[in-house]
């Protein structure tokens, strides 16, 4: 009984702790890269080589901070919001084969289940912004909802194009297919779907040029305005977990997952995801923010027809490959 419990609990515990560690250092990495691009030093004084203890110090500081609940807010939903976001963004990692050998949950429809779980995050964001009864938070959360649900359509379609070419919805199959060539090197369709995926991943992860919900000069800090202390830390952590999940997804579907040029190992998934994250950081510090009407019009008028054209092209190509000999 006890042994089987350990067998169950150990992979869960390992994956969660490794994930939290990686994500804590993603924040540190972001601050370091930002400092480098602006000719600053960045976090330096906590921990000897280059302030490597900074994430720990931040977490400890936020834990001792006062945890205030606004007077007129809906306190049940206000407390539920951060917990919901954290649980949902971590739960999508149960399906990704990112930890040493296998995913925690090995099912045939893992890709579909991943999409289903990770799109639940918007409910948590909405209840936390709405329940804090703050006008800035409400505006932020309305923008965020419109943005995330709109960009979900091109994101899913751009990921379905490789799935059509492969003919499967499980991450294991997708990785096995890319042993010879990665999807990104597939002529035309690979690049087209990667560009659509990259743009909508920036919007889903709420990054510049699509970070309208936290536009610092307009809305104080978006839907997290009323949150303080450990609940703010939960939001901060969950945002990076979600973004890292999207990076891992990109590295699995487009960059061959655990297949490498010299050796094959699951550590390559994490390395590729980190490189992808660095690319997002470079974009963050070189672009500017766009307006909400531009954001939605770009999605509905340009990105969605383009992704449907890609879907049609993939379908015709697969038809040609299957039936050209007949």
């Amino acid at each position, binding site marked *: 009984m006890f042994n089987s419990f350990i067998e169950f*609990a150990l992979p*869960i515990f390992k994956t969660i702790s490794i994930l939290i560690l990686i994500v804590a250092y993603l924040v540190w990495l972001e601050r370091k890269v930002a400092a480098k691009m602006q000719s600053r030093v960045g976090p330096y004084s906590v921990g000897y080589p280059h302030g490597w203890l900074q994430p720990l110090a931040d977490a400890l500081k*936020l834990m*001792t901070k*006062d*945890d*205030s609940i*606004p*007077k*007129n*807010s809906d306190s049940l939903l206000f407390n539920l919001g951060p*917990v919901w976001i*954290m*649980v949902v963004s*971590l*739960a999508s990692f*149960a399906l990704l084969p990112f930890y040493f050998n296998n995913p*925690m*949950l090995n099912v045939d*429809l893992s890709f579909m289940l991943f999409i289903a779980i990770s799109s639940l995050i918007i409910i948590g964001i909405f209840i936390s912004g*709405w329940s*804090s*009864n*703050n*006008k*800035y*938070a*409400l505006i932020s959360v*309305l923008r965020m*909802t*419109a943005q995330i*649900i*709109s960009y*979900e*359509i091109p994101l*899913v379609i751009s990921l*379905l194009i490789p799935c*059509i070419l492969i*003919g*499967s*919805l499980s991450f294991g199959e997708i990785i096995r297919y890319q042993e010879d060539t990665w999807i990104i090197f597939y002529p035309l369709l690979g690049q087209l779907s990667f560009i659509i995926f990259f743009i909508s991943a920036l919007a889903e992860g709420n990054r510049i040029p699509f970070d309208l919900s936290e536009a610092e000069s307009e809305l104080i800090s978006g839907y997290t*305005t*009323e949150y*303080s202390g*450990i609940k703010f*830390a*939960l939001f901060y952590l969950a945002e990076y977990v979600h973004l890292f999940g999207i990076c891992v997804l990109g590295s699995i579907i487009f960059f061959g997952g655990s297949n490498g040029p010299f050796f094959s190992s699951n550590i390559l998934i994490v390395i590729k995801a980190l490189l992808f994250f660095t690319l997002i950081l470079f974009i963050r510090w070189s672009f500017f923010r766009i307006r909400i*009407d531009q954001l*939605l*019009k770009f999605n*509905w*008028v340009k990105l*969605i*027809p383009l992704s*449907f054209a890609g*879907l*049609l092209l993939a379908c*015709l190509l*697969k*038809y040609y490959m299957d039936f050209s000999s007949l």
Partner: protein
Amino acid sequence: MAEYPFFIIVFMALISLPILMILTSKIIKFIVGKRKNVSDTIYECGEPSIENSWKRIPISYFKIALVFILFDIELVFIFPWILNLSDPTPGSYFSFITFLIILFIGWIYAYKKGYLEWEM
């Protein structure tokens, strides 16, 4: 099929994580000592906040949500079609292309009606 009950255990572990973090924070604050709390008013750049913020919201957000539901439901139909591709027939491709054409006619209708534009 055997994996799905396992997901409940994963879920329990994940729920316990943020709750444990909040409890740890409460314990630390109990040890450090409670501050006097005057920060429970709504943040509004120094002014006291006027009225609730639970009011009517712009119609454009509703329109976007309606168009989203239309496209999202049709997206769900693509998943079972992909699973069918392991044993393809010419008919499965033709039916899918017909489906895409009908979807695109719907998009043209929404575009002509101006539902994809932002109302100021």
